[in-house]
């Protein structure tokens, strides 16, 4: 029973409990890293030997890819977090008690995300996403400033409602399956549902999908359900912003995609892609325009995440092997890049003592290594080569043009608007005369380098096994 998938879940759960008990902060930070590293090791083991899917846990190409990604970014974030949190403690923003809580929650958050990815049971999936919401709500309110509490409150209410709607969708899903699969757990098991998807009532499926899309879509940050996202990113600790952007959004989108696959498998149901393309485009355009007026650097990049999720949702909505492949690639690369950007932003905030964009200028002059890393990160997220997001964006645009040329217009427009804002800010953040006082940087930038190198490497050359893997997932997604 103790296979890789279980281990992946067990390690963070155990460490979450353990970290609640550990008091010394340094030790806690190290244990956090160790736990994440072990999780990563367990996740990697899934690639080598893949356990059988059971009624509770599902292991296939799609989620192994996301599990590895999640574990990897979780690990690098824990490394970054160790340096970052030490700084926070030094500056007195965090008390030891909250710190203990933070580390435990970090692992708990990892656990819930991994559970959501691995769950085969729709109810379990829902519980895991709900758990992820709860843990992150607590993390966002960690600083207990009025702004943090407000952000957390907003986050909680909006995602609480969203999650409730998702539950309604899940119940509907069961309702649809019940006549075919009979009563009991089978009606909630994804693998079973997929097999009989063609036989269930398409209209209930449609209804269910709408609730699921709005519900989990809130968590993805689809417009106009995205309001919680920027504030939660901005007011929480930066490592949490990194994992929120890099991982949680993916997990929520993953949930949507699982249900999309069910709908696609039922021939008579509506095409879920249309809804997703429309919402994806809307999200892209809205977020791109929102970028222009941002003054807080973390909010800025949070909106950029929304924009990117819009692109990814659009790509998956478009469907087809090329767009699905591109969506998967974009998802992974966005996680790596955006978390790297948040790492850099975290350091920049510490160096300048402010989150305001106006207070952070000329980073390449005052902190060359940090400034150039941040710049490269933005260049990457803007979809410029040699970074991989260029390739995925190219595939998305080309796929769109090939499939339905007129959809390319809003897509390109959105990409362009977002690009303009990113460049605007990239220049003011990284160039010009440095504003204000600036402290020297102590923390290591290695996690940023690793992420950016990976993104660049994938942009130049994807290993054949990875390509084959992505292809099989793209086929799975239909």
């Amino acid at each position, binding site marked *: 029973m103790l296979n890789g998938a279980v281990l992946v879940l067990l390690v963070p759960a155990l460490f979450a409990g353990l970290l609640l008990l550990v008091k010394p902060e340094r030790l806690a930070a190290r244990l956090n890293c160790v736990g994440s590293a072990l999780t990563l090791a367990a996740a990697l083991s899934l690639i080598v030997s893949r356990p059988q899917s059971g009624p509770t846990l599902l292991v296939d190409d799609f989620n192994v890819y996301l599990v590895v990604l999640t574990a990897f970014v979780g690990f690098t974030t824990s490394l970054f977090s160790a340096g970052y949190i030490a700084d926070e403690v030094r500056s007195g923003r965090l008390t030891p008690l909250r710190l203990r809580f933070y580390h435990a929650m970090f692992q708990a958050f990892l656990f819930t995300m991994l559970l959501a990815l691995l769950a085969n049971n729709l109810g379990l999936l829902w519980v895991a996403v709900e758990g992820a919401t709860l843990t992150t709500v607590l993390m966002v309110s960690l600083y207990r400033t009025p702004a943090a509490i407000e952000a957390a409150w907003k986050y909680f209410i909006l995602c609480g409602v969203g999650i409730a709607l998702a539950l309604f969708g899940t119940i509907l899903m069961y309702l649809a399956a019940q006549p075919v699969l009979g009563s009991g757990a089978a009606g909630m098991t994804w693998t079973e549902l997929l097999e009989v998807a063609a036989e269930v009532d398409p209209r209930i499926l449609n209804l269910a999908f709408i609730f699921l899309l709005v519900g989990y879509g809130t968590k993805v940050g689809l417009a106009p359900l995205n309001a*919680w996202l920027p504030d939660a990113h901005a007011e929480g600790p930066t490592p949490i912003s990194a994992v929120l952007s890099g991982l949680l959004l993916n997990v929520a989108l993953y949930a949507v995609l699982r249900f999309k696959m069910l709908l696609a498998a039922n021939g008579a149901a509506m095409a879920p892609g249309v809804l997703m393309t429309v919402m994806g485009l809307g999200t892209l355009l809205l977020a791109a325009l929102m970028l222009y007026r941002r003054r807080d650097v973390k909010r800025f990049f949070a909106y950029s995440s929304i924009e990117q999720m819009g692109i990814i949702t659009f790509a998956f909505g478009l469907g087809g092997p090329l767009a699905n492949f591109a969506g998967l690639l974009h998802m992974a690369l966005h996680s790596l890049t955006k978390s790297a950007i948040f790492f850099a932003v975290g350091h920049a905030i510490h160096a300048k003592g402010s989150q305001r964009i106006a207070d952070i200028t000329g980073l390449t002059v005052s902190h060359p290594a940090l400034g150039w890393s941040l710049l490269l990160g933005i260049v990457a997220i803007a979809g410029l*080569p040699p970074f991989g997001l260029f390739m995925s964006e190219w595939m998305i645009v*080309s796929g769109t*043009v090939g499939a339905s040329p007129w959809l390319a217009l809003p897509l*390109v427009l959105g990409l362009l608007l977002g690009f303009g804002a990113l460049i605007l800010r990239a220049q003011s953040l990284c160039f010009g005369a440095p504003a204000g006082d600036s402290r020297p940087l102590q923390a290591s930038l290695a996690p940023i380098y690793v992420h950016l190198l990976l993104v660049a490497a994938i942009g130049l050359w994807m290993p054949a096994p990875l390509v084959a893997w992505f292809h099989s997932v793209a086929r799975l997604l239909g």
Partner: protein
Amino acid sequence: MGRGPVAALIYGGSGVAALLVTGVAFAFLIQGDSPWHLKIPIGPPGLGASLVLDGLSAVFLLAVGLAGATASVFGWGYGRDGAHKPGHHGPAPARVLPFFPLFLAGMVMVLLAGDAFGFLFGWEVMSVASWLLVLSTHDEPETPRAARLYLVMAAIGSLCLMVSFGLLAGPEAAFSFTAMREQGVGDGLTALAVVLAVLGAGSKAGLVPLHIWLPLAHPAAPSHVSALMSGVMTKVALYGLCRILFDLAGMPDWWWGALLAALGSLTAVAGVLYALLQDDIKRLLAYSTVENVGFICLSLGLALMFKADGKPVIAALAFSAALLHVLNHSLFKTLLFYGAGAVVAATGTRSLETLGGLIHRLPRTAPLLLIGSAAASALPPLNGFASEWLGFQAILNGPQLSLWGLKVGVMVVGVFAALAAALAAACFLRFFGIAFLGRPRSAEAVAAQEVTAPLQLAMVVPALLCVLVGILPGLVLRLLHDAAAIAVGTALPASGSLGWLWLAPVGQAGGLAGNSYSGFFVLLVAGGLALLVFRLIRRHAASGLRRADAWGCGYPPVGPVSQYSGASFAQPLRRVFASGVFQAREQVSMPEPGETGAASHLLRWRDPAWDFVARPVWATVDWLAGRLNHLQFLTIRRYLMLMFATLVTLLAIMAVLA
């Protein structure tokens, strides 16, 4: 930028690599081989990327390689000159060195790409690298805006190209050029792809009104980078245009050419008028680039029209004119930008109004720049004239087009081309005359010192080539045969009786007969006559020479302020050409008699490209962003409302559909 082994290594390496590229391109063109293919393992999964060298890319590669080599030499010497000048210090080497080779590599990548992905990859690398190079002067006040605008326009261009390639690739996703060529997509989609290609490549090349970024960004970079951006990056953009319009998109429609020729004419005249209004010498040169791009596009447009009309020989003539001008412009524009760089290194200023008399202080740079200016003014026997001559010959064949509108249209295009050529001469007279002749207008100009040998070397090479190509254009035209064959299906027929000494384009193949030009003979005879006159005067006329104060109609000599300035030189032209479109207005306030206050002269002009294109677009984006920004500041209840509305809307849609 800077001394030290690292700079030497990087510039040395880039220079050698660029020379190598030049050599390869040259060898390929001489041999007239079938295309060289090379599969490379990077690139998008399943598609891979391939490098292809054919006649068309080799021509452009030649220009890039040559310019890259001289720019490396110039860059290596540049920092050493500028660094010790008081009040002037070049950008930090670390901000230039890493990106210079990357920039070159990006351009080479575009030219060698054998598929859409490789092309766009190189294209974007080229944009990003040059953007970062522009930002190397980020502490100067105008740079950030220029850089920002530049990259955004570049993104517009590359997205247009991306969609264009996507359309040409069709639903089969045929992204390699070979496959794209073979498959035809529907007429409507091809039309869209062509328009997008013109927009995309045109914005990079500087077609009016998409040129707005160019005169801001090119001058902001260090001069050797400006030279590359203006001299060859615009050409790389034109390569994209040629590749798509002549090669990938299949048989053209007449309107492709008409569109391109119209835009090109507009660009040529507008570009040079802008240039006449500039005070910053590097910006002036950048606008002159716009003009030349206009001329090239105009010729390309003609070539397309003739190709569509089933007149491949004349199309080849126009196309060869365009390509020859590509090479020529890359030569003289790099030369001119190096010269401007030398001026900046020597004086620390780019303002025309503070220069003057530099011919005495930069005795070696001045004649080189004179050659560059004369070439840019299309004076025989230099290279600029050879390509303009060919262009005019193509225009003269306009009546052979079968559509009436086009016949007349080509004549109008001819007026524009002629006007642009004449204005260009005025523009470069102003440039050279104000900066190098007369008396120095500022202390910086007085204190200028000649630049060092590497900088001079970098200028000598293109200057020599300007002359060489000018007198023997026939030789260069032979290099263009393959390109013309790829683009229009046939090469320009071999020249007249004396082979490469002559430009005698169409000859017997139909069209005009007996038109010929030989730069070589013009130079030979003019040189002989000049020598004769000189000898005669030496022998028979008085040989005394006396220096005295300038006569100036007997007015007592006053300071250098009394000279014509750049703005006053352009005043008659401004009144004739710029008072309408550019709304150029002058305000003069003279002190009353007896008052001792200074008189003032205020010159204002508006840029229609900004007024009618760029600003409205930005204003719309800004307005939208402002309106939507309210979404960030709603109450939670309203956010819930949005969510509720979304849900109910979706449900309602479903209820209706069900």
